[in-house]
């Protein structure tokens, strides 16, 4: 850690923003939030009308001249109606953010995804739809998965089309410029209403692969870089395992069947999970060219939410990285306490461990654990499915508040890790790799991501040099308001 830089961030930045904090935040203090701890800013509702495009201020460093594009992000941004709090982080309405960066300028804008759930609950000013942690109101009809779609987990841009992603229903098509909602995306008439996971895998040439999960039955989407569905097939994974993410190499799809089973997918979904470690972590490896060409691989029991990406060695060994837990954590109670402003600190010790999974051509998989803890692993989009060096994670933990405190990068080639500790005052989210112009490897990348400054009550977008993360941010843009914590993003 660069002490002088840290000193600047903690003292200089904070002081310079004292006026801005008093001037008014994006998140208005309401009666029920006034007595909340500072970190609860990350769980407070975003304005119903969203945020109109607003320039952010460069408050630190120099913006890279080659950094041009949009950081799109999604996250649950309506977690209470008055005293009624969402009982799971997955049940808040999705808000799509766009931070457009060009010529050293960053402009933020955001809109809620106008789902049926959003529209009816806004009209009633209360929660109605059943969900991951919510039973829902008996009067709320459910004739399709999209009737409960919160569209709150991630985003995908394919052929210029912006999609807001959930995992149990359709993607929602959005206007990539205005962020207005167009409606549920149907890839083919006979696939109307099929789920579309929030973790599609995009090959370097733009082809998109994704899964539709319905208990033990899993659909596979193959979508061309032109946005057209090229193929759809079905495989059976044997058990109704929770599948939030999966991974992919150049030649194979790798479906991780974790022993966290839910045979009864009725709301509240989270109540139906059972940890069955006797099964271990099983993986179905599917040939991209022939979905019927499959192989099962066994690994010790692990629970996970997120993978990095996979690659294949010349001898056929498949390797991928993921954030693994020894047993279910975090999502089990879904942050219901944090949403209410309560934090016991117990989850601070239940961190995901960055793990390399090695799948030999024959036999069981091996797990190689690193000393790096964290979540939201990300890799350079130029190397998805291919051999690479780096994986980045939101890392660090505090017993004093929820959320990550650091950005970490691990280099699988050198075995070295770097991190930058932001400290208590900044809640760290997912950082994305953005290739530098003319770069020769994933070491030639920027890492771009948001933090929530809970001391000043504002949002910041930080840029790091992926090869020199421990040197601290290259630059920071700051909004003079806050928006709640989110899940995942994409760069386009």
């Amino acid at each position, binding site marked *: 850690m660069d002490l002088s830089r840290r000193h600047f961030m903690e003292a200089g930045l904070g002081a310079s923003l004292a006026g801005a904090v008093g001037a008014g935040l994006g998140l208005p203090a309401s009666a029920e939030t006034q007595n909340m701890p500072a970190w609860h800013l990350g769980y407070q509702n975003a304005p119903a009308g969203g945020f109109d495009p607003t320039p952010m201020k460069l408050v630190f460093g120099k913006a890279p001249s080659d950094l041009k594009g949009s950081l799109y992000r999604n996250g649950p941004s309506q977690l209470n109606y008055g005293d009624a709090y969402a009982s799971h982080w997955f049940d808040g309405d999705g808000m799509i953010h766009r931070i457009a960066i060009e010529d050293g300028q960053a402009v933020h804008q955001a809109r809620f995804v106008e789902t049926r759930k959003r529209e009816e609950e806004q009209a009633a000013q209360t929660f109605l739809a059943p969900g991951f942690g919510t039973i829902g109101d008996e009067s*709320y009809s*459910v004739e399709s*998965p999209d009737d409960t779609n919160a569209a709150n987990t991630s985003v995908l841009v394919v052929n210029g089309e912006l999609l807001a992603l959930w995992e149990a229903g359709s993607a929602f098509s959005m206007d990539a410029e205005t962020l207005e909602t167009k409606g549920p995306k149907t890839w083919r008439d*006979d696939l109307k*209403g099929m789920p579309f996971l929030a973790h599609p895998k995009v090959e370097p040439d733009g082809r998109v692969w994704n899964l539709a999960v*319905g208990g033990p039955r899993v*659909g596979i989407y193959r979508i061309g870089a032109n946005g057209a569905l090229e193929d759809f097939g079905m495989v059976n994974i044997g058990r109704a395992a929770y599948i939030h993410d999966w991974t992919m190499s150049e030649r194979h799809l790798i479906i991780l069947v974790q022993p966290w089973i839910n045979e009864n997918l009725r709301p509240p979904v989270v109540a139906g999970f059972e940890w069955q470690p006797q099964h271990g972590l099983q993986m179905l490896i599917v040939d991209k060219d022939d979905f019927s060409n499959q192989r099962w691989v066994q690994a010790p029991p692990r629970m996970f939410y997120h993978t990095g990406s996979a690659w294949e060695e010349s001898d056929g060994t498949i390797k991928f990285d993921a954030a693994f837990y020894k047993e279910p954590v975090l999502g089990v109670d879904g942050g219901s306490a944090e949403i209410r402003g309560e934090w016991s600190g117990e989850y601070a010790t239940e961190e995901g461990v960055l793990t390399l999974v090695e799948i030999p051509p024959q036999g069981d998989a091996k797990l190689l654990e690193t000393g790096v803890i964290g979540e939201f692993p990300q890799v350079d989009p130029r190397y998805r499915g291919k051999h690479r060096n780096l994986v980045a994670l939101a890392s660090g933990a505090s017993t004093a508040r929820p959320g990550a405190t650091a950005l970490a990068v691990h280099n699988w080639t050198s075995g070295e890790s770097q991190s930058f500790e932001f400290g208590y005052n900044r809640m760290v989210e997912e950082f994305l790799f953005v290739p530098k112009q003319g770069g020769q490897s994933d070491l030639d990348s920027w890492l771009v991501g948001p933090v929530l400054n809970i001391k000043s009550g504002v949002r910041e977008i930080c840029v790091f040099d992926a090869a020199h993360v421990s040197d601290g941010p290259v630059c920071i843009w700051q909004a003079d308001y806050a928006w709640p914590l989110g899940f995942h993003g994409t760069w386009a």
Partner: protein
Amino acid sequence: MTRTASFAALIAASLAAAPVALASDLTVNVEGIAKAQGSIMLGLFDEASYEGDGAVNGANLKVDGNSVTVTFEGLEPGEYAVRLYHDVNDDGEMNTNPFGMPTEPFAFSNDAKGRFGPAKWDDAKFTVAADGTTHTITMN
């Protein structure tokens, strides 16, 4: 045979004896049809048949606009419900996605909606009066 015949004769006699009381007409209007093609496949049910496959009456109605109408004549007054779907591609089936969710529009009388299943009888039922009834269903 004798018993069956006499039973049938009894039915016929009772029908003939009370034609006014049993001859209610029900007109069902289906509005808001999104695509002017295919057919509306409509089933009329009483409480006993609602949960099963056998409708008490039904109609396949060609769609060439955004609404269709059908009249059922000679119904016994009482409670009924309608279940229908729009067979957009005219293949005679209610098409579903690989997970079994309908991919063609469907609706119930009273515009009733289901919750993880079809609309319940109590939500979809309506009364066909002795002097006839018109019921309108709006697709969405």
